[in-house]
């Protein structure tokens, strides 16, 4: 697993509290049995009318194309557990150089935050005033390069330096490159078997 100490790039603000995963990716796109095309769909119904014409949305704006960091608000990614949502954000943009690599928001829904983690995407929180300031900088000066540093837990850019937060375990996993947990879990196969043997339901409470 690649280690993820810093992520640098331009940012796209997606404003609003309680942006749910149905809004991030409508359910009809979950009928595909692979994630490969998810990059075509983020915020689809917020970006396009039913006749295909564009609506006003940051993801449609030329100035935010190629953004690497998303600035969201409160309870970002609430609702459905669909991993398709972070997959869609991560794969958005040009296939050769896709997508969102980090998300900064006031808070995250838990399952969404966990799903981001499984993809190696830091979903870090910051104070409301800081997030609003970051969104304003990205809006007014979209060429601004931001840099998220997981060693110092700061985000810098546009003259701002703000503190960001992430549970220690997640920070450590991203820094160590152990965020893809299968390997870690598999290493404890013996212990798993021993624990399973102690659980009464495993042999039908005999």
């Amino acid at each position, binding site marked *: 697993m690649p280690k993820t100490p810093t992520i640098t790039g331009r940012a796209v603000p997606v404003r609003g*509290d309680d942006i749910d995963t149905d*809004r991030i990716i409508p*359910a*009809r796109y979950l009928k595909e049995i692979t994630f490969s095309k998810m990059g075509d769909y983020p915020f689809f119904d917020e970006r396009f009318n039913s006749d295909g014409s564009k609506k006003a949305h940051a993801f449609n704006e030329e100035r935010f194309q190629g953004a690497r960091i998303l600035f969201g608000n409160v309870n970002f990614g609430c*609702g459905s557990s669909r991993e398709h949502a972070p997959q869609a954000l991560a794969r958005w943009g040009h296939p050769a150089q896709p997508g969102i690599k980090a998300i900064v928001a006031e808070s995250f829904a838990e399952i969404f935050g966990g799903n981001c983690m499984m993809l190696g995407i830091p979903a870090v929180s910051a104070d409301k005033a800081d997030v609003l300031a970051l969104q304003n900088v990205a809006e007014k000066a979209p060429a601004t390069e931001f840099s998220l540093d997981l060693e110092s837990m700061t985000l810098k850019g546009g003259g701002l330096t703000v503190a960001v937060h992430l549970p*220690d*375990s997640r920070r450590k996993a991203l820094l160590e490159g152990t965020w893809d947990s*299968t390997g*870690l879990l*598999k290493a404890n196969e013996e212990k798993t078997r021993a624990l399973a043997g102690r659980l009464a339901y495993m042999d039908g409470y005999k």
Partner: protein
Amino acid sequence: MAQGTLYNKVWDAHSVARLSTGQTQLFIGLHLIHEVTSPQAFDMLREAGQTVAYPARTFATMDHIVPTTTRERPFADAQAEKMMQAIERNTRDFRVNFFDFSTGRQGVVHIIGPELGLTQPGMTIACGDSHTSTHGAFGTLAFGIGTSQVRDVLATQCLAMDSMKVRRIEVNGALKPGVTPKDVILAIINRLGVKGGIGYAYEYAGDVFDHMSMEGRMTVCNMSIEGGARAGYVNPDETTFAYLKGREHSPAGAAWDKAVGIWRSFASDKDAVYDDVVRFKAEDIAPMVTWGVTPAQSVAVGQNLPDPAATEDAGERGSLETAFKYMKFTPGQSLDSVKVDVAFIGSCTNGRIEDLRAAATVAKGRKVHPSVKAFVVPGSMQVKVQAEKEGLHEVFKAAGFEWREAGCSMCLAMNPDQLVGDQVSASSSNRNFIGRQGSSTGRTLLMSPAMVVAAAVAGHVSDVRTLA
């Protein structure tokens, strides 16, 4: 930090190891899968040359994409058919238990787990679906996961988890007539908000839950996630054991007695410590209706809609304004005048036999308003059989409801059951998100099954307690 709660006991009993990251490796006792969030996980196993570590602990069914008007294959929707073939292939290749149509046990994954007796107190339960919290009704630690985590459970029967806090939510006193478990959870979410539960498992306790049926408890736990809590549970008691006795996968004979003893021991201690305690008075709760685009944006039936201008927090005000704009409602208005186009009864929240009985009681001898399209979708094939045994289908059909086959249906509209344009639905499901029911301009009003029938009959939102 919580101590001595059911959460603590289940967590400790399933902790395999502490990982280098500081997370806990948690053993998963029951893994449920469905057709939508599992195919990529099986592909990841194939790519890595891995097998399913404990195939006997994973149970599959299909619910999200199945049409509810026909069981005929191939499905008319080629994508849905392909998805069906994928789960058939995956469960066969990896030798995972599979409840398809031919077993008579297919249904919404959170309905069949309890109904088959697979869901048992003291277990950890995971599923690639956020409404896995439903199973907490049995005193389990049950939560939704993403597809990469589905892969982890398949490959290792474990997850890397951060611990949770525990909030005890007590509802004491007696509910007034006409107030249902759905109203209780909508009232809780209304007060605590859609993000109030982030980081918490909710423990539901007090008189109301002590006297609530298992099916009612499932409705409440189901919507924990709508309040931001990934898991919610009720401590196991005699009601739990009575429900489980004699179910297909429940222990029997001497094993039953042993199991009940173990199950009882998982209940929170009398002197358990909680991270937070919140209390509600049962008599304050009325039938609830959501009017906005989050499950917290609700009012007691008959109440007028709030005014965003009265909200101090700019973010919350923004959410309210978004909701009013999308729903095409006006601050201060009443919902009573809102015409309903579609009435939907079903889903993992309210698609069980008790829900259908409650709905049928209201529907009996009444007629669906001619401008309303109304349908009832049993949560499972077994619920359907039971309802037909009781003649509920005849009651619904006589009232003008369509009687369908089991599936998730219009809760999330990944199947032919969808709203059209800006239709308004009265829905017994769990989410009123923007575009949730299949139209990017469709409008959803969440309410109890009885209230859905009242709206279907009146043609507009209506208080079931005063239905003519």
